[in-house]
């Protein structure tokens, strides 16, 4: 019996290929069961996410199983053109690969945590449909403990890798829980919306939107369950908010030091966090020189996100070391 893995992921196949083989999340167990019933296949787990489609198998004959499984997934014989996108792993390599996937080092965003839950769910469904047996049960259980060990013993999850999440993390570093924080969004662009949504999802108390087109401000405010104000009133709102996300299309700076100076006393000099994600910048850099102001523009946020990515990348070698040691133990 061999442990065998067939798969496609974001590195080997474009989305138009991946979607041809994709299985919807609730169907993973059912498809695992169908595959486990194919000739020569003893056990199967189908894992299908937006970035990967993989089948973990216990088979007698690798070549035969490979043909049958791909044919089953495609609903027809797989052309050579499509076949070139598949990768296959056998025995130790398959075990290592599963541990890499569970640990997040094989993900598009290295160290992301969602994949751990996705693999668990795929295995749960396959197990519930009795598509797994002694070998895959042991292998998946072990892979989960390896995944936990890798995440606990390395810094693979440390730092943020997107501008929005860096900004939200910074807001939490300043204000702690955001449940008492009020956010003002200046400009109703996509970036503002995404960042405001992240702040809202982390518990921001209220969101106020100011935009040159009041209609768009109202739309965004409704979407974010917030309140819209006229654009020329944003400086008055500054007195009460904690976080300002600015992303207007203005060709010049919109928020000036005098706007902030005017409300400092009223704010009792409480800290305020400005997130300037506009290009060209909306907030005069001199605003950042005011004592209680923390100002981050797109470049500094992007730099922090890049640092986060490269730090995670640096951790990959440590993760692989842990995985190899643990896989040796599994195989003993």
């Amino acid at each position: 019996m061999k442990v065998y893995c067939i798969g496609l992921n974001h590195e080997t196949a474009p989305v138009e290929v991946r979607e041809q083989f994709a299985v919807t999340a609730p169907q993973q167990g059912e498809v695992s069961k169908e595959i486990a019933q194919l000739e020569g296949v003893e056990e199967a787990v189908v894992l299908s996410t937006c970035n990967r489609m993989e089948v973990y198998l216990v088979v007698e004959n690798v070549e035969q199983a490979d043909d049958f499984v791909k044919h089953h997934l495609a609903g027809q014989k797989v052309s050579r053109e499509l076949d070139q996108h598949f990768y296959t792993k056998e025995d130790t390599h398959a075990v290592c690969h599963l541990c890499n996937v569970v640990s997040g080092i094989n993900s598009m965003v290295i160290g992301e945590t969602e994949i751990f839950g996705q693999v668990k769910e795929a295995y749960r469904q396959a197990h519930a449909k009795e598509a797994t047996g002694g070998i895959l049960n042991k292998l998946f259980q072990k892979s989960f403990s390896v995944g936990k060990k890798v995440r606990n013993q390395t810094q693979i999850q440390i730092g943020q890798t997107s501008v929005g999440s860096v900004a939200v993390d910074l807001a939490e570093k300043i204000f702690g829980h955001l449940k008492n924080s009020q956010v003002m969004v200046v400009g109703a662009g996509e970036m503002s919306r995404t960042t405001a949504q992240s702040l809202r999802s982390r518990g921001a108390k209220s969101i106020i939107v100011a935009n040159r087109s009041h209609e768009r401000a109202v739309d965004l405010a409704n979407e974010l369950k917030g309140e819209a104000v006229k654009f020329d009133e944003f400086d008055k709102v500054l007195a009460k908010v904690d976080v300002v996300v600015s992303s207007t299309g203005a060709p010049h700076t919109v928020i000036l030091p005098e706007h902030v100076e005017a409300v400092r006393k009223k704010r009792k000099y409480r800290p305020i966090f400005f997130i300037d994600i506009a290009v060209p910048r909306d907030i005069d850099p001199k605003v950042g020189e005011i004592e209680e102001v923390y100002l981050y523009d797109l470049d500094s946020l992007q730099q922090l996100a890049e640092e986060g990515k490269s730090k995670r990348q640096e951790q990959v070698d440590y993760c692989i070391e842990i995985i190899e040691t643990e896989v040796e133990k599994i195989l003993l």
Partner: protein
Amino acid sequence: MEPSVGAHAASLCFALVAAIFGFLSLRKGKKSHWTIVLMTGAFIAQCAFLYFRGEMRGKCPLGDWGEILMFIAWSLTLFYMFIGPAYRVSLLGLFSTPLVSIMTGVALIPGLLESSPERITKGSVDAWGELHAALSVLSYGALALGMVAAVMFLVLDKQLKKQKLTGVLFKNMPPVFQLIALSKRLTWVGLVILTAGILSSFKMHNFSSNSPHLWTAVGVWVAYLGFLIWSEVIGMTPRSFAKCCGILFFASLVPFALI
């Protein structure tokens, strides 16, 4: 060896090891889980030291600079043990343990601790005087820890302003708001205890309204009260608040020189 010397050395060892462990853990990217345990050890040793010195003097052991420093270190450790775990303020131990170590270490400098303190005669103990001394020193523990939280804020503020957000120190720092709130709360607690300490001095046998010690202590009290009311009513930038906490704490040590 005098038992008080052994207790003194033990408290220094515990505080130093806690500081070193905290620093090494931070370098490894972790928070030290041993800080609270080691600080408890330091606290027990400090209690023993103060007990032995109290026995030697026959009264509250605040007769020389060494005892005053040890008493403040004890008070700071006491507040750390209450505040640290209760508010889950990460790294408060890392910043507190060096301060406790310095105070305990400085108290070892020859001449700061009288080797054979004079024991007062039985019956001449002034309960109000003892209460005054104990409350005053206790208040300094809260004020010192408030200053520690303020220093932590200054470090975090600098990192946020300069956008140098790497390193385990930044990662483990509590949020800006939490540090400022903690510093403010501890300073208020310190002021309330200091008020009780000063009020109890009015009942002392040897109370003198012309004493420079009293007037400097009242001056410190007024400065703290004015500072806190200003920050609550008019407002103050967190950086100014933190700097004032530090300046006032060191200024507040002046009355001790005038005992």
